[in-house]
């Protein structure tokens, strides 16, 4: 069963009724959700990962298999199809070949042309079978595992391992990995963030300067916490999820957020997806979406209803209800593109349909 979400609603009251379009928020706002679960052929209520490939195919990683959505139906791949383990934790597409890589609780898998090949710690150079995160950078597949980061060169077939023995890691439990323009970012549980330059072979660690486990003593001074649960990078901006808040780094300045003091919905952040500079953050209480100034939070009410909080800088919080809600408030994975958003939750898969966005007139157009 998924987690039940209990939201205490305090004044101002949630506005019911027809949702007025949100015109001023500078990023897409979801107007309704479509939810998919066991009734739709998803074999498990728990969905860990979601990905839409460049060809428009939707892949989801669940507690019981890897699924692809074809012609409106879900097709499952399990161990009987060659998948190394039924519990799929993470997904990534190789942009050059279209292959989908899936990390599981027992190995790394490549799905190519409908066939699965697997890599485990016993039959390959993968450092550990528990693969929390995976990404592709140049010709290399990077896997964040429970015993270090593994890098498989797809051209030579050679594996490299980076852990506390040869990299600036506090411990080898790697929870996330992301290829950036020139670097690989590794999210280390208890070790903050490691920035690795694969061409030079160098490492740089970003640790919480406060050194305090529970509090962000001095905001915006560095990573909010060393317990990195996920990270992502896009166009020069690094986002870090921790169990104690959220961080953002633009290469020069850090920005941190914690619940209650900032619009961040919960400190227990699980996942972040960045699309065109907008961060979509999954946590135990729902989803926060932000460009670091505006925030839109999606919650699930105690009656299962959908709730939205809109945080505008310097303005009161606007609260609305929605006719639909996320399948569950515990969000483990997110995919967003220009058309829609998908959420992997603890009790099903949700599709977020965007409200039509107002066309923003440029100055040149206005003159015409």
């Amino acid at each position, binding site marked *: 069963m998924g987690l039940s979400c209990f939201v205490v609603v305090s004044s101002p009251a949630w506005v019911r009724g027809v949702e007025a379009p949100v015109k001023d928020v500078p990023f897409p706002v979801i107007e309704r959700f479509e939810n998919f679960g066991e009734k739709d052929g998803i074999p498990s209520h728990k969905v860990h990962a979601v990905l839409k490939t460049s060809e428009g195919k939707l892949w989801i990683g669940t507690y019981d298999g890897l699924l692809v959505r074809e012609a409106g139906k879900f097709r499952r791949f399990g161990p009987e199809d060659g998948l190394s383990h039924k519990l799929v934790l993470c997904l990534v597409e190789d942009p050059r*070949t*279209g292959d989908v890589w899936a990390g599981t609780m027992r190995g790394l898998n490549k799905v*190519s042309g*409908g066939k699965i090949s697997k890599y485990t710690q*016993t*039959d390959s*150079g993968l450092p550990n079978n528990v693969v929390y995160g995976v990404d592709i950078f140049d010709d290399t597949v990077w896997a964040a595992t429970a015993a270090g980061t593994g890098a498989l060169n797809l*051209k030579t077939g050679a594996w490299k*391992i980076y852990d506390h023995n040869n990299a600036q890691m506090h411990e080898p439990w790697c929870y996330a990995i992301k290829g950036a323009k020139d670097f690989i970012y590794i999210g280390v549980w208890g070790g903050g963030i490691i920035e690795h330059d694969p061409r030079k072979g160098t490492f740089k660690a970003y640790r919480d300067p406060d050194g305090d486990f529970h509090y962000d003593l001095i905001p915006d001074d560095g990573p909010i916490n060393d317990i990195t649960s996920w990270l992502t990078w896009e166009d020069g901006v690094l986002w870090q999820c921790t169990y104690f808040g959220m961080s953002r780094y633009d290469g020069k300045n850090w920005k941190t957020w914690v619940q209650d003091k900032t619009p961040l919905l919960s400190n227990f952040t699980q996942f972040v997806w960045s699309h065109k500079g907008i961060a979509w953050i999954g946590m135990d209480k729902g989803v926060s979406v932000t460009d670091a100034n505006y925030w839109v939070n999606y919650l699930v009410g105690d009656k299962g209803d959908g709730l939205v909080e809109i945080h505008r800088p310097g303005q009161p919080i606007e609260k609305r209800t929605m006719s639909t809600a996320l399948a569950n408030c515990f969000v483990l994975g997110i995919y967003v593109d220009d058309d829609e958003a998908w959420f992997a939750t603890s009790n099903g898969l949700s599709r977020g349909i965007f409200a039509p966005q107002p066309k923003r007139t440029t100055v040149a157009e206005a003159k015409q």
Partner: protein
Amino acid sequence: MKKSGYVVVALVAVLSLGGLGLGSYSWSVWHVRRWSGRRDLNFVTCNHCHLVSIEKMPWAKQRPHHPAAAGMAVSPDGKKVYIALDDVDQVVETDVISRKVVRRLTVEGAPFGLALDSHGERLYVACRDGDRVVAVSTREFKVEESIGVGEAPVAIAFCHTKAGDRLVVANSISDNISVLAPAPLKELARPQAGREPYSVSAAPDGSVAFVANRLAVPQNYLAVPNSELTLLDPARGRVLARKSLQSAHLAEGVAAVPGRSWSITPLVKVRNLVPITQVANGWVMSSGLAISDYQGNIRQMPLDEAQDYFADPSGIAVDATGKRAYVASGGADVVSVLDLDRLAAWLAQADEAAQREAIDDLSLSAEYVLARLPTGRNPRHVALSPDGRTLFVAERLQDTVLVVDTTTLKPMGRIVLGDGGLTDPIRRGERVFTLAARTFQHQFSCRSCHPDGHVDGLSYDFDGDGIGDNMLDNRSLQGVAGTEPFKWIGKNPTLAVQCGPRFARVLMRTDPIPPDELKDLTVFLNSLPPPRWERKHNRPLTPAQERGRQVFFATMTPAGKPIPRERQCHVCHRPPLYTNRLLSAVGTKGPRDTTDMFDTPHLLGVAHTAPYLHDGRAKTLEELWTIYQTNDLHGVSSYMNKHQLNDLVEYLKTL
């Protein structure tokens, strides 16, 4: 001197010599036991560990090279045929009418596969040993540019797609496919293929390219082997589908069929899991064809006949009408001519069950095989003129190309490239190696299990030691010189014994190879270098490989604990061949094995010989120590962390 004096002197001499001999023997036993750490060993000749050098190996010495024809390409006007001569590093242009070589071009790196662009202005050459593709101007007949691709490219196809012209290259050792823009040459993508992609053909509309993969990827050694037909979108360089050639492998050729949305892949239907109690009725293997549509739905049809086999099918060409196909069988010295209309008609009337079982009905080939054309030795590649009227058959082991009139199916003559090389025992031996005529009903040749003298990646059950007992992994013959004894139990002291009468009884099921041919065969086998020797030998090691080398040669663990001598890697796998040629027990006896003592395999080229151990149970090198290590009997590995194991594997890959 008195007679008694002579007796005394003789007695003293005999006793002295005897004492010397006994002393030498005792010392040598002590010496072997001391340096191997093994108390079970007695007298062992010195050259198990000493006096072995790479320079003395037959394969390290100069040998004659022959203009053996490999890939061919016919010009769009049908007047010229280009031929790759990999063994002499040449590409030649020949005139079809005169059948003479008119121009030669040196192309280093063993040119093997050829493709022409649509206008015949550029010839693209896949250079197997150079790991590159070269573009040649056909007007000036010189190299214009080249580009690095994957390892050991052996086949190349040109196609026109909606996104532009493409070249698709099969990289047989790196197990991937290079998709190139042709002018200028640029690699656009390098998707993964199956194991040993060996041939490429593109559909006329460029929507799909078919890549035939030679071997099956190792799975459970008792699982049915399936090699792969890779369907690729050449415009984007993306794999569309990976389809299994069920219970089949050695797919060395593929051709797209115009007008039918088919591809046809010659293959070998191998039955390695069946104990080799007989050879009749295709018991061990038979040749067939995989007919695939553009979605990868495959039907398998037989190429052989019930009492006659056409071993080692490889090259295939289909005419522009899509009605005729020509398949070269290198072991049988035959080109089979197929009527594709009749093949299609049979498929159309057959239900699903009949189609599924067709491959096992050797009488079926009569439905669509029009003719079997005899050729010279070892036809491997074929090419057709654009009008389909002339067939070119590369007779690889007699240095000629047979030219056939396809309307009469009669030979018109030959393009003579060399003298056939019959004064060279290596060439003569290779002819024996590739000839199926020595086996029962010509079912297979040596090459059928050892393609290019290498492995087929399968395990077999020979019935002589009990049905279902002692499954044996196929071993590479590349680099085999100086590694006697042979067989996993070390029973055969020489190659001549290995391939002699016992082999004839166990496998060939006919008369043994005649002595003079057997001698040539062993010369040929001894001439085979380890895989990729020239590319690997004496290369500087990366840091990881150097760390792995230290692990391999370690005499104590990093903690300072001595490793027993008999379990130090380099003692049994002693350089330069990485074997001491002795039997050892390394804890790998299986429940159906009758012994635990196995011949120490040489490690040169070990990266390319998966699977591993005597029965092939280890799919990868890692598994030797992560799954199949027992009490540190196969070297001491219990102290290793994953870094060290990875480094050791990286070092082994350099051998």
